[in-house]
């Protein structure tokens, strides 16, 4: 156990090192330079560009830039090239905006997909199962931005509530209840959109896991003993089918920093995805690289946690 943990931590640190190199190379070897973002601006004289390049070490060779960047990153001193704000502060602000979307989206995903998947597995081949299957394919295939506009038209026309942004402009000093309702309406659509693909995929997965377990001998035995169907399905089958999903708790972690670029742009939601998008357009390398690094760290921690959980939960795996 200890040796497994030690080995996988070393392995993950090596992976992280290579990720940092690859992402750095991708950004810096692409054509164009951040100092050329706005060539038509008359303030950008030759001296300004030179000063800019010297200030951010852009005139140094690539490996020195790499060392400078990661030294700053680990000492927490990285600053955005656009407005000189500390990167971690900017990310933290946007993270707090994205967090509600992530939390509500995750709750929606897990609470909707489990009942749907279990029911389709129990009534396999029936009309419910077939329509659930078709709907999950539909949800996987629908482009997020198109679905967003359908939902916006629907909600605006039928409920007459505004949905764009984090809250309605000028709601600052209204009473508590109205304000809370306003926030909820604004939160609901983007988090539902963020959850659609998750719901579709996870419910299919729940269904196939349940089918797998329902075909096992002990479930047949339980049925043959004359147990009530509910007891067979929910006690004998479901508990064993849940095993792989415990490990998936680790895999949601990277979603924390993901934030959908498209959905946040449509809803003018000032979250992480939008910040990434703006940083990409402005060639704000420190923000792009930091986001990339943080999300790689989260992916690695997530897989590590899911490996550990699998070890703890499944007695068949002993190292």
């Amino acid at each position, binding site marked *: 156990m200890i040796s497994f943990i030690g080995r996988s931590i070393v392995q993950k640190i090596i992976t992280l090192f290579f990720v940092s190199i690859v992402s750095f190379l991708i*950004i810096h070897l692409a054509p164009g330079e951040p100092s050329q973002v706005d060539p038509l601006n008359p303030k950008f004289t030759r001296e300004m560009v030179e000063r800019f390049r010297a200030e951010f070490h852009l005139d140094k060779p690539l490996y020195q830039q790499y060392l400078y960047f990661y030294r700053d990153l680990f000492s927490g001193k990285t600053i955005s090239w656009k407005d000189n704000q500390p990167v971690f502060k900017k990310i933290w602000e946007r993270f707090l905006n994205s967090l509600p979307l992530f939390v509500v989206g995750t709750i929606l995903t897990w609470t909707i997909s489990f009942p749907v998947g279990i029911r389709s597995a129990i009534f396999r081949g029936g009309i419910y199962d077939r329509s659930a299957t078709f709907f999950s*394919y539909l949800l996987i*295939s629908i*482009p*997020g931005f198109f679905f967003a*506009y359908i939902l916006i*038209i629907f909600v605006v026309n039928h409920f007459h509530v505004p949905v764009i942004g984090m809250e309605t402009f000028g709601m600052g000093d209204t009473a508590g209840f109205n304000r809370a309702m306003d926030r909820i309406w604004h939160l609901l659509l983007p988090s539902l959109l963020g959850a659609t693909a998750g719901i579709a995929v996870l419910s299919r997965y729940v269904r196939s896991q349940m089918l797998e377990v329902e075909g096992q001998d002990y479930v047949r035995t339980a049925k043959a003993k004359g147990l009530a169907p509910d007891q067979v399905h929910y006690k004998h089958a479901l508990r064993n089918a849940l095993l792989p999903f415990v490990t998936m708790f680790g895999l949601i972690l990277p979603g924390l920093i993901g934030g959908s*670029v498209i959905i946040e*742009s449509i809803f003018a939601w000032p979250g992480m995805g939008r910040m990434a998008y703006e940083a*990409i357009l402005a060639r704000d390398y420190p923000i792009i690289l930091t986001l990339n690094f943080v999300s790689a760290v989260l992916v690695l921690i997530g897989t590590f946690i899911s490996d550990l959980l699998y070890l703890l939960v499944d007695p068949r795996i002993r190292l």
Partner: protein
Amino acid sequence: MENATINSQNKGLEEPLAPKRTRLEEFWRLFRKNRLAIAGMVFFILFFALAIIGFGLTRGSAPILNPAMVRLQDKLRPPLALPNLERLQPHEVPKLGIYIFGTDDLGRDVFARMLQGSWVSLTVGFVAVGIAVLIGIFLGGIAGYYGNRHIRVGQLLAGALLIMGAALLISRLLWAGSVLLICGAACIFISRQMKKALKRDPRSAAARLWYFKTLSIDTVVMRFVDIMLCFPSFFLILTVVALLPASIYNIMIVIGLTSWMGTTRFVRAEFLSLREQDFVAAARALGLNNFRIIFRHMIPNAVAPVLVSATIGIASAILTEAGLSFLGFGVPPPHATWGNILSDGKRFIFDAPWLTFVPGIAILIVVLSFNLFGEGLRDVLNPKLRERH
């Protein structure tokens, strides 16, 4: 007498025991049962035909259906509207005599633009997935077939020196870079000498150090897959596409280069199990070279899961391309793609909903058909799944 019995026995063995079907017939018999998959296949073929016809009709300097013709007199006409013949110049009159999908805010025919965009979606889907599948089969094949071979110290040294030299050259350190490149070339030369030295004296310490085994090829390839999986894929694609000049080919290449990891894993797993099977051992015993074993014997047996993941990969590549052109990346403006028709039309969503719904539903139908077709293929090609239904 004896001959006769043997003959009759042989005859009995040669006679077909059951009505014999070819692989294709068997495949079709199973596939036909899945109605959703059949619908997917029909739309798949329709889309293919439409995209090719659309490419023919909208290309060139004087296309039959001009997707870039601006008719401000006829802007924002609803679907199935007739052109306003009195106010149009003769060369502006649409050839079909009707706006099947209406016109947009510049009076461009949405039907012609959709046809032009369908070709973009088709080529992006197929080329991106083609690139991903080629890389996946190559790397997965290497990891699966040669996986237990090790990289030796000498090879590692030569490779590291060459790569570092190239990196230094790119970052404009010409002097140090060329020195490292020369060192790398020297390593290749030394390893030839070491081979001779090893033959002469198998216990020479230098030669043994030079041939010391480090990582296995399998480890290297699969760690590389892990590294690539650490990147958030849409964010990575967006970054690279935003940095590169706007072109549809860049999008295809970038999507292809960032989506090969799944195929690599499939192919590796298949190759690992195929490598141990009798027919591969037999092929090796016959003295076939590795190249022939891989391409004639193993890849045809490993292709089923790849085919399935490729079909579903096309669907997600089309979605990714639509998302990118919705955000304004990709093909430069006068050229239409489904994503940018929708993106241009979103400003008129309450006045001209067809500008949102036509491309949106088109993307939905195409992606859905690819997904259904792929899932149908998976059910048919994977006997384990088949029994359960």
